């Protein structure tokens, strides 16, 4: 009680109290900012103020990797552990740190620093990626630990290559495009136009555009909006899924840090169309900088009245809350994301029912990815016709691809749907780095599948990729040259899934662990008889029987590799014969 | 993993809820208790006592051989003997012959009025029926009572006066059909845990609204829409003010009042003075809360009232209960599913013991002893000479104690109870017990009362005998023998039959019948004399119990009462006046003490303090509000002295908002710090129930050295 920090916390908790359980994540973030971790006494205060059972507060703290129940170092450095960053040298960064730290610790300088392995940080084009107290570094491989620790590093600048200029026109300038600049470039005209239309007209425009979700599931956006608009129940919610965590993906990060208002405009149009007066934007916990940019953009939009009561004098009112995640890939799954906003462990729900009828707080909800929403202003401004002129018949519009790995020009690429893989990789990105041969390219992220040379002429569209057995996913194109060990890649993907499985359903909870164990064993001792069958059984069971997309795709890279490279998991003895 | 030799289905021996227990037995040891998820009363749930609290059966301190005191006890010099060294182990023959000889001696010398018996709300219907039969038929005394006098006597008397039946009107599980319910003077989470779960379910899953009227911030307040924190003993003004609002705002049910009630005008006139403003001054409850509660209850589709001992345990306990009954009659929230007047009964078989005639004014089935026709009926039924049964009302529990005197009560037979823990003003009780000429204890352990006894008859536990319990919603359920009786202990009904036959032989009177082969025959005999039990047969309650009344072999039982009429015809409104509690606070005694129970313990502690349950809650704690604690300069865990005009105890305190400022709470289970040393022997004039829920005390800081057992401490997080 006497602890002044606890009294500070209580003041903040009194503000959070009316929000109830849904304020749990913000309260925990605030607590951790104050104390550096979440002490039991603070957690008890949170539980009492927000009316959450103590054990449930514990359950939530323990679910998210960025919350700590014990004191941690003053400076926490996250080192990406995924294949691209590993191949770019994150492992040796790690090793060097441990080699160097003891010396420094003796002199009293470093004992307050902790290094943590992390899943993909969304900085793949700057591999090996580091976050120093939430700040992204650029070119960590070339810097000394001393510079990194003291914060003496440059901020990464993402290279953007455009064949169309719709989503990223305000991106890549090294600073956010704030409201004035956004409006000067025609920003918020689409929203103003939408306010002059009926919600049904807005929905029919979006339906006519053929826009489908860019988060990975490719569901027609207009159909989703219509479903939520027609669903009985109120209030209704619109949620922006900015929990970008699929390994190899960084497009949403770039858009948030560069052009925040485009996303807000998309959300406003969606909210107006479905009759939602409340929106949430859920940003992954590692994107602290992007969270701050969005928060400032929200403030700007509130100041001029895009967000608030009776927006621009219309009957439409809208309130937006931003939520920062706390280290859980699974929260990118839409229902897990709802749970997380509601202040619970981020566990996916059983579907059906679907979000359009039973979403956030059990109410009709539209949840869209950042990139999806960023398409909406263009559609409203230019009409569905114009939009459909871009891309292919069944995949209209522009698409962002995230190129990383062994490629000459890693970065963000905005192209119309329908260009070939070869075009992007060789014509735009300069081909495989160092002129080496491409061994494999992972499409779709950790939950993806491998392409090889034979796939170079596949057109990048939903329909063409599907025919080739490749997922578009979130637009990940992760290139590996012929020097890379495929089994190492698979092992790292397997570790990612094992660490990120929420643990709800048995197939994924246990399957991701078994998959990891088998691949670890192969990495250490070589392949034994039965390994491949075990991997196949585990992968098939996860794919067939898991609750959500995480489990259903946790074995897909392994299955894809087994199909592409028949001999990959032949027992060592057999191969010798 | 242990495989059971057998799994036996029986009924929990603790509270009135009546949960089904499936006892798993290996090598005659009960090692696990489960309960079926389709069990009609408790639906798969149990509380800590039901799940784990059976282990007293195996406690080494349990007495399993008959005992006689080594040193002959003389009136005025009677002492307590807890140590077995002070007792002689004897045969059953010797113990029963000795008991027979002493009881008959006193009876023949001083007559019927010299004898008294405490029946037991923990024992079966059969045990209680036989014990009252023995004293009524053989000794012609009506000095027969049990702890119902100390718990719901006020409710029973009020319900008898107003509607003519004293049981819970509806089934506990019907709470999910309430849309508004009032819970008052009842801490269900601790005392009726399974009903509390059903209440929470009704609120959380069925949208029911709860109004708590209680001086304590009980756990269910967390689930309540309204909490009216009244000062102890101000129930009549609070509930009458609600009636006042309902009358003023015309929220009453005129059709129900016209067709089903009487005395409305007199009642309505008496409510005039109970304005919310007046109630606020007296009770401390914000008048707006009273108005809101009145509107909410009156405008409910189905409203119900649940109460426990906070209502009757007052000098105006009967009036308190009448105030609740008035509300139900006014709004017509009675006689339908999901409504009702529901006194939550404390003991597992307090309903049954009352039904079985363990009461001074009634034969079994609430047939009055001063009713000639009833007396003749029982004379016939028990094969007694015409005119032999005593037509005078007998003494109540508290009166039995106060009548111990050379020309009053000389000998008492106590089955199972422990007046030396449960009576108010224990110093007085102790003095009275010392004056007894002869005392028989029949129980499992030598408790504070039996320690005064001359002879101790070791009884079997609930797990070692067959019989029936009747739970709080009038459901007669089977109790089954799970394991053979430990040592030489015997079922109570067997002990009574054996003793009664010896007494009859000595008195040389015709037999009232004691040759039962099985308890089922006892219940059948009772059914011939009590119409409400006529259809209750063991073969009908093998799986699921029947709710009384069950008028014949084909009658399906009665889930809720008063659908068409009240037993007395019309429900009667009672005009009320406000009376203060017997003792009010002053400068010397500035706190109101209220007493009660905790989840882990049962009453005098005979069972639970001989169980591992005691590990969970090993010492008495006085609950003090943080505001008072700060003024007293104490914090949780500090030792305090609590003193009343009658006595003083030392115990640790628990600083908690569960109790309101100015009020302290002490559970009465702990012989190391017995709350009833402090309570006042002031009784309700009609129901004769003592005022356990309010007396004036002083609280001061004390030293840990003053505690009888300072080691007993257990950090707990559930408060």
């Amino acid at each position: 009680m006497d602890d002044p920090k606890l009294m500070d916390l209580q003041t903040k908790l009194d503000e959070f109290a009316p929000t109830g359980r849904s304020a749990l994540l913000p309260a925990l973030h605030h607590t951790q900012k104050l104390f550096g971790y979440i002490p039991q006494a603070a957690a008890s205060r949170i539980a009492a103020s927000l009316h959450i059972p103590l054990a449930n507060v514990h359950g939530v703290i323990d679910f998210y990797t960025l919350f700590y129940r014990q004191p941690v170092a003053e400076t926490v450095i996250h080192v990406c552990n995924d294949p691209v960053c590993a191949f770019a040298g994150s492992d040796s960064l790690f090793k060097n740190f441990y080699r160097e730290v003891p010396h420094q610790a003796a002199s009293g300088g470093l004992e307050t620093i902790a290094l943590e392995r992390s899943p993909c940080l969304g900085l793949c084009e700057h591999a090996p990626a580091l976050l120093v107290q939430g700040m992204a570094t650029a070119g960590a491989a070339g810097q000394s630990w001393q510079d990194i620790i003291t914060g003496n590093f440059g901020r990464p600048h993402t290279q953007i290559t455009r064949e169309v200029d719709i989503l990223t026109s305000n991106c890549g300038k090294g600073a956010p495009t704030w409201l004035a600049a956004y409006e000067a470039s025609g920003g918020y005209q689409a929203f103003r136009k939408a306010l002059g239309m009926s919600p049904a007209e807005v929905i029919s425009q979006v339906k006519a555009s053929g826009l489908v979700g860019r988060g990975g599931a490719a569901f027609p956006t207009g159909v989703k909006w219509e479903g939520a608009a027609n669903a009985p129940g109120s209030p209704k919610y619109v949620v922006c899924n900015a929990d970008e965590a699929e390994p190899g993906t960084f497009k949403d990060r770039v858009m948030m840090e560069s052009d925040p208002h485009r996303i807000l405009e998309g959300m406003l149009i969606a909210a107006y169309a479905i009759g939602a007066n409340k929106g949430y934007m859920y940003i992954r916990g590692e994107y602290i900088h992007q969270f701050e940019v969005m928060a400032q953009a929200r403030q700007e939009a509130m100041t001029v009245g895009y967000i608030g009561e009776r927006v621009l004098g219309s009957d439409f009112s809208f309130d937006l809350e931003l939520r920062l995640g706390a280290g859980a890939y699974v929260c990118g799954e839409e229902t897990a994301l709802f749970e997380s906003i509601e202040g619970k462990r981020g566990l996916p729900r059983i579907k059906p029912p679907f979000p359009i009828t039973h979403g956030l707080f059990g109410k009709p909800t539209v949840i869209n990815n950042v990139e999806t929403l960023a398409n909406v202003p263009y559609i409203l401004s230019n009409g569905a016709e114009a939009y459909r002129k871009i891309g292919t018949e069944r995949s209209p519009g522009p698409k962002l691809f995230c190129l990383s790995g062994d490629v000459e020009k890693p970065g963000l690429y905005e192209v119309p749907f329908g260009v070939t893989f070869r075009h992007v990789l060789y014509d735009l990105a300069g081909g495989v780095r160092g002129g080496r041969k491409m061994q494999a390219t992972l499409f779709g992220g950790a939950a993806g599948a491998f392409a090889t040379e034979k796939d170079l002429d596949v057109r990048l569209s939903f329909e063409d990729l599907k025919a080739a057995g490749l997922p578009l996913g979130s637009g990940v194109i992760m290139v590996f040259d012929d020097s890379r060990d495929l089994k190492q890649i698979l092992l790292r993907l397997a570790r990612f899934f094992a660490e990120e499985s929420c643990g709800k359903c048995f197939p994924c909870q246990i399957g991701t662990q078994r998959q990891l164990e088998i691949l670890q064993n192969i990495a250490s001792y070589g392949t034994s008889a039965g390994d491949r069958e075990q991997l196949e059984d585990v992968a098939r069971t996860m794919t067939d029987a898991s609750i959500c997309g995480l489990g259903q795709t946790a074995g897909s890279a392994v299955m894809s590799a087994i199909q592409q490279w028949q001999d990959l998991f032949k027992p060592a003895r057999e191969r010798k014969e | 993993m242990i495989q059971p030799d057998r799994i036996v289905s029986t009924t929990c021996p603790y509270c009135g809820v009546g949960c089904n227990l499936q006892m798993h037995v290996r090598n005659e040891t009960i090692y696990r208790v489960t309960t079926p998820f389709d069990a009609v009363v408790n639906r798969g749930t149990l509380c800590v006592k039901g799940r784990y609290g059976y282990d007293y059966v195996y406690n080494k301190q349990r007495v399993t051989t008959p005992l006689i005191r080594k040193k002959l006890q003389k009136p005025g010099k009677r002492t307590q003997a807890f140590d077995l060294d002070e007792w002689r182990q004897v045969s059953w023959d010797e113990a029963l012959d000795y008991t027979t000889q002493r009881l008959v001696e006193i009876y023949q010398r001083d007559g019927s009025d010299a004898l008294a018996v405490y029946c037991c709300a923990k024992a079966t219907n059969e045990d209680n029926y036989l014990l009252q039969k023995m004293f009524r038929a053989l000794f012609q005394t009506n000095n027969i009572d049990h702890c119902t006098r100390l718990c719901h006597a006020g409710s029973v008397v009020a319900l008898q006066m107003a509607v003519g039946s004293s049981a819970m009107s509806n089934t506990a599980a019907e709470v999910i059909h309430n849309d508004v319910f009032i819970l008052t003077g009842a801490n269900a989470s601790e005392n009726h845990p399974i009903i509390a779960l059903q209440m929470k379910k009704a609120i959380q899953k069925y949208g029911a609204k709860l109004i708590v009227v209680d001086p304590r911030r009980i756990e269910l307040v967390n689930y309540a829409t309204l909490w009216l924190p009244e000062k102890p003993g101000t129930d009549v003004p609070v509930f009458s003010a609600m009636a006042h609002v309902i009358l003023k705002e015309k929220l009453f049910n005129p059709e129900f009042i016209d067709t089903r009630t009487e005395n409305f005008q007199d009642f309505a006139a008496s409510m005039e003075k109970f304005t919310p403003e007046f109630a606020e001054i007296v009770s401390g409850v914000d008048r707006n809360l009273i108005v809101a509660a009145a509107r909410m209850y009156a405008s409910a589709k189905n409203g119900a009232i649940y109460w426990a001992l906070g209502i009757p345990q007052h000098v105006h306990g009967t009036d308190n209960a009448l105030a609740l009954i008035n509300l139900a009659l006014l709004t017509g929230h009675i006689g339908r599913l999901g409504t009702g007047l529901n006194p939550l009964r404390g003991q597992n078989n307090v309903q049954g013991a009352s039904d079985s005639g363990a009461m001074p004014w009634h034969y079994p089935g609430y047939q009055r002893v001063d009713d000639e026709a009833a007396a003749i009926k029982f004379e016939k039924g028990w094969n007694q000479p015409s005119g032999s049964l005593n037509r005078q009302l007998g003494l109540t529990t508290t009166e039995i104690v106060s009548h111990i005197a050379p020309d009053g009560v000389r000998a008492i037979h106590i089955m199972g109870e422990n007046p030396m823990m449960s009576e108010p003003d224990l110093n007085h009780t102790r003095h009275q017990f010392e004056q007894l000429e002869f005392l028989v204890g029949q129980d499992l352990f030598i408790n504070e009362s039996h320690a005064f006894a001359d002879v101790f008859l070791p009884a079997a536990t609930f797990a070692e005998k067959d019989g029936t319990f009747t739970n709080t919603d009038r459901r007669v359920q089977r109790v089954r023998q799970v394991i053979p009786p430990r040592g030489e202990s015997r079922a109570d009904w067997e002990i009574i039959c054996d003793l009664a036959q010896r007494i009859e032989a000595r008195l040389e009177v015709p037999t009232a019948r004691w040759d039962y082969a099985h308890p089922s025959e006892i219940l059948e005999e009772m059914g011939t004399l009590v119409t409400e039990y006529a259809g209750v047969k063991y073969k009908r309650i093998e799986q699921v119990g029947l709710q009384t009344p069950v008028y014949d072999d084909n009658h399906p039982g009665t889930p809720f009462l008063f659908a068409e009429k009240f037993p007395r015809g019309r429900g009667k409104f009672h005009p009320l006046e406000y009376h203060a509690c017997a003792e009010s606070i002053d400068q010397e005694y500035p706190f109101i003490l209220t007493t009660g129970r905790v989840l882990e313990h049962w009453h005098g502690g005979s069972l639970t303090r001989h169980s591992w349950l005691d590990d969970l809650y090993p010492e008495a704690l006085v609950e003090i509000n943080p505001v008072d604690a700060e003024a007293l300069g104490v914090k949780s865990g500090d030792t305090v002295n609590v003193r009343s005009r009658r006595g003083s105890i030392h115990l640790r305190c628990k600083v908690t908002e569960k109790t309101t400022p100015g009020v302290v709470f002490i559970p009465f289970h702990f012989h190391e710090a017995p709350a009833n040393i402090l309570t006042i022997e002031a009784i309700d004039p009609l129901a004769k129930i003592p005022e356990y829920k309010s007396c004036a005390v002083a609280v001061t800081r004390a030293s840990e050295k003053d505690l009888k057992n300072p080691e007993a401490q257990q950090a707990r997080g559930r408060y």
Partner: protein
Amino acid sequence: MTDDITLTIDERPVTVPEGTTILQAAKSVGINIPTICYHEFCTSNGLCRICVVEVEGSRTLVPACVAKVSQDMVVRTRTPRVVNARRTILEMLNASVDLSEDENIQDLMHEYAADEARFPLAEPRQHAILDDNPMYIRDYAKCILCWRCVQVCADDAQYTYAINFSGRGYHTSISTYYDLPLTETTCVFCGQCVGVCPTGALKPKREWLMELGYTPDQIMQMTRTERKSRMRRPQASA
């Protein structure tokens, strides 16, 4: 009023009210679908996925305990795909936890010819026995994470919320607030959790002491002090 739904389960027509689960519908015609985490008394969460069946038109297998029937649905409860998933789940589970006291799972292992040694290098979930109260012990090396205990402690029965989860994924475990001993939590020792635990992970303390070889008399003579000294000290399994 609900409408009746007609569907086909294992080529047999079945008619049930709307809102029925596939599991209940199958049961109504005597088709037994195996379950592990499912408990009639608890909220179904479709965790164990042993009850998965094939539904025509569905990309993945469907958990019968939570999936509702729909008109003209075609369900097959024992296709090779289903059997393979069930067997693999059983084998993976068996490599993770001690299932010896769960007779249902033992029967299923046998029925689905699950290989007990399928994942020899698997790291089982190891937990020391928690003996921190007088009423029951917690042996989480036997815990399959069916959630029943957490649910009955919460809204399925007791509304006490003494336990929740620690960690996530494979390393999820049932836990109290900040791992406090149960006596210091909101636990009221109702034992609803013990009543629904299928694997013996939660067990009455006296039963556990009997298993360890103590006689009933020895157990009952254990004093409060002795019992207390045992608490908090991790116990090796018998």
